């Protein structure tokens, strides 16, 4: 596959052409995109942002991976900044690796980071949303929006 072929397939926007994930069985990989404003970034510890909503009774979300994009503005985020994906809220089970502050939120220019699912087994939470949060406390002073591109699956649990 060449760069030209990739460009043709993907169009001008990743979601612009081809069969979207919403047309596939949800047991296959699904895909969600969420833009997070800098104001929301500054409160991610107290108010994690929902990336994938709760799937409904008898279903569970499986986090697969996420690409995190910081669209650097002019002021770097400071303090705290370790981030991850969890169920429900800031107290939910962590389902992803934790991303170091220096690797993402504290970057001083545009940055694209991939965040993987936990490699260890983890107990999943039925009918719970996936949220993006910051550990320990809030970041401060920054003004860059971020974009989250999240891959996940939905499973029927029969429970």
């Amino acid at each position, binding site marked *: 596959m060449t760069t030209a072929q990739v460009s043709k397939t993907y169009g001008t926007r990743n979601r612009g052409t081809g*069969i979207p994930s*919403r*047309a*596939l*069985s*949800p*047991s*296959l*990989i699904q895909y*969600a995109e969420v833009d997070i404003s800098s104001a929301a970034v500054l409160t991610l510890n107290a108010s994690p942002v929902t990336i*994938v*909503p*709760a*799937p*409904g009774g008898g*279903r*569970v979300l*499986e986090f*697969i991976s996420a690409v995190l994009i910081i669209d650097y503005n002019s002021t770097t985020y400071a303090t705290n900044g370790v981030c991850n994906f969890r169920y429900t809220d800031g107290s939910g089970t962590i*389902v992803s690796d934790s991303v170091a502050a220096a690797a993402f939120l504290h970057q001083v220019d545009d940055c694209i980071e991939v965040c993987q*699912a*936990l*490699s*260890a*087994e*983890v*107990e*999943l*939470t*039925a009918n719970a949303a996936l949220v993006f949060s910051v550990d320990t406390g809030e970041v401060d002073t920054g003004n860059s929006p971020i974009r989250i591109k999240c891959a996940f*699956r*939905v*499973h*029927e*649990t*029969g*429970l």
Partner: protein
Amino acid sequence: MTTAHLAKTYGTRNKGTGIPSRALNPGLIQYTEVEISSAEVLAAFATPVEVIPAPGDGRVLEFISAVMILDHGGTDYANARTCHFEYYGGGTTVSDTVAAATFINQADDCIVVCQALSAEAELSANTAICWALDTGEVITGNSPLRMKVSFRVYEAEL
């Protein structure tokens, strides 16, 4: 995307709407669901349970991940046994090993995700993948399991 949107997309059954994996090129991610009875669980050390059949000559299966569901039936499985996915016939392990306390010895309904080995592993051509217990059988439990397994099929051309 809202919960209502998800519910509409997913329909009343996870596999009920949308293009199923069997309609995709098998080089893309495939998906299978397997129910395992408590009788099969009680014998899963001596007789691992097939979750993906052998793909045929010249092909190989790649295990990606599995969501394992324990539908607690009232009696816990005893004996602490870890579990994993492996190629048929006591072959190469292809997944992480899941601790007994995390899954098979749980005292209530439980949903656990099991990932592929993060280390490299030699794959076995045209061989089924099974779910197996380590070191011995569990005893006394009566909970069925449900496995939701993601995998790929490759033409090995060997």
